């Protein structure tokens, strides 16, 4: 059998007969497995895959493998398994079929192989067409300078009406209480007033307007009333005890006060 019959020109060197060298160089490396090899052989039959002669194809494949082995080429197990299977198929195809009813007929097996070959051939065509398509980054392009979506961090403030009201009442109450405490401190007790008056009046033997003394203690105008009230009460008490004398010309005019001297017994 010649190389031409095998249809292996693409893989054969026709550089002229060199007796010392094998005429045929089997480029088994160029095939991607036994199906690929079978397809290459089938292509050389130059017939439609639908009309392929599986028997002829098996013959060609087996002859190819024989040749490769003769050339001591190492063949991957896949090729040898296919060779064994094709040898079996060939024997089945050559023998008269005994209708056993069990297992696929030789024709079925041949058809299955033909279908596999067709499927591989078809997917190769499909792969070719897929990669012929315009590919992104090679043939078609996305925007070269995409504009980034800026992320704006927008704070979403959360507060409930309850938060608002508790804040308000907390604030107002705190302030109200603070004021009360301040007032407490500002309130003159009677005892405080009396102690202060005793100290003040102790130095005065002349009539004096009490307001002038007391104002010195008044830090803020709001304390005027409490200071005045407490001191008036204390003065009345001291007057009753006979320690001081009080003098007021008419209602709402300043009250004058002086120490009651032992010698000065007369009341105004």
């Amino acid at each position: 059998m010649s190389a031409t019959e095998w249809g292996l020109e693409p893989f054969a060197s026709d550089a002229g007969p060199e007796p010392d060298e094998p005429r045929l160089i089997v480029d088994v490396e160029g095939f991607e497995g036994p199906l690929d090899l079978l397809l290459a052989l089938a292509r050389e039959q130059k017939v439609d895959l639908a009309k392929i002669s599986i028997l002829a194809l098996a013959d060609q494949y087996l002859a190819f493998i024989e040749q490769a082995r003769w050339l001591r080429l190492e063949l991957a197990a896949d090729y040898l398994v296919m060779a064994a299977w094709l040898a079996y198929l060939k024997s089945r195809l050559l023998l008269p079929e005994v209708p056993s009813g069990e297992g696929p007929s030789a024709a079925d097996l041949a058809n299955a192989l033909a279908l596999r070959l067709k499927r591989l051939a078809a997917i190769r065509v499909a792969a070719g067409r897929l990669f012929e398509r315009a590919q992104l980054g090679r043939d078609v392009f996305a925007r070269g300078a995409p504009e980034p979506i800026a992320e704006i961090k927008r704070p979403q403030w959360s507060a409930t009406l309850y938060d608002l009201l508790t804040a308000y009442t907390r604030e107002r109450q705190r302030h109200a209480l603070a004021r009360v405490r301040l007032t407490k401190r500002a309130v003159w007790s009677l005892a405080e007033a009396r102690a202060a008056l005793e100290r003040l009046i102790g130095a005065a033997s002349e009539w004096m307007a009490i307001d002038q003394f007391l104002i010195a203690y008044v830090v803020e105008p709001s304390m005027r009333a409490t200071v005045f009230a407490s001191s008036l009460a204390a003065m009345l008490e001291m007057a009753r005890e006979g320690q001081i004398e009080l003098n007021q010309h008419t209602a709402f005019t300043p009250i004058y006060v002086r120490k009651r001297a032992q010698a000065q017994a007369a009341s105004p």
Partner: protein
Amino acid sequence: MASLAEIRMDIDEVADAALERRPEELRQLEALLFAASEPLDEKVLASRLAGGVDVRNLLRRLQSEYAARGVNLVRIGNKWTFRTANDLSWLLTREAIQPRKLSRAAMETLAIIAYHQPVTRAEIEEIRGVSAAKGTLDVLLETGWIRPRGRRKAPGRPLTYGTNEAFLSHFGLEKLSDLPGLDELQGAGLIEGSLPAGFSVPMPSDDPALREDEEPLEESDLDLGLVPQPAGRED
């Protein structure tokens, strides 16, 4: 004679027809400018197109074609690039919502503004008994719930603050006077214990009409960004 109706083509068909008559170079410029990772200058563009083409002229035409679109052809120095239209920049931002809680001071200040408006910063400080950090008012302005509403007719002409509609809507109030008064606050147990005589809670009002002791904000207040822009407030 053809009637007007017969003559009148669908305006879009005419537009399509115009597109079909476009010089091929415009398509090429479109593709080049779109795919480029940076603006391209006229020389580079010219070198990529067939010779003898008036690139400047084509670019001007492309620019006017895109002027009304969401993408514009803009010239930067001597270079050209497609950019999304300026007025659509808001589309290209994603708002990441960041939930935040108001500080206690901010909450109290807000409450005082709500009840006592119109109120100046000094008045807030007087009520709170502490000097308000300027940051607190800034934060409140950022919430979009308060607004400077005028200036007090007083020395220094301080800004007066009040709440706005966003405030009502956030707190689910129909009107500001729905804020509870003293009795209701006490009834709700929010105010407990005895209160000093004269303690009162004002009847709040956010009537936008200026009070007698207020005068309107000026242009310069708006410029200073003291007043949120109407659009921003809508957000």
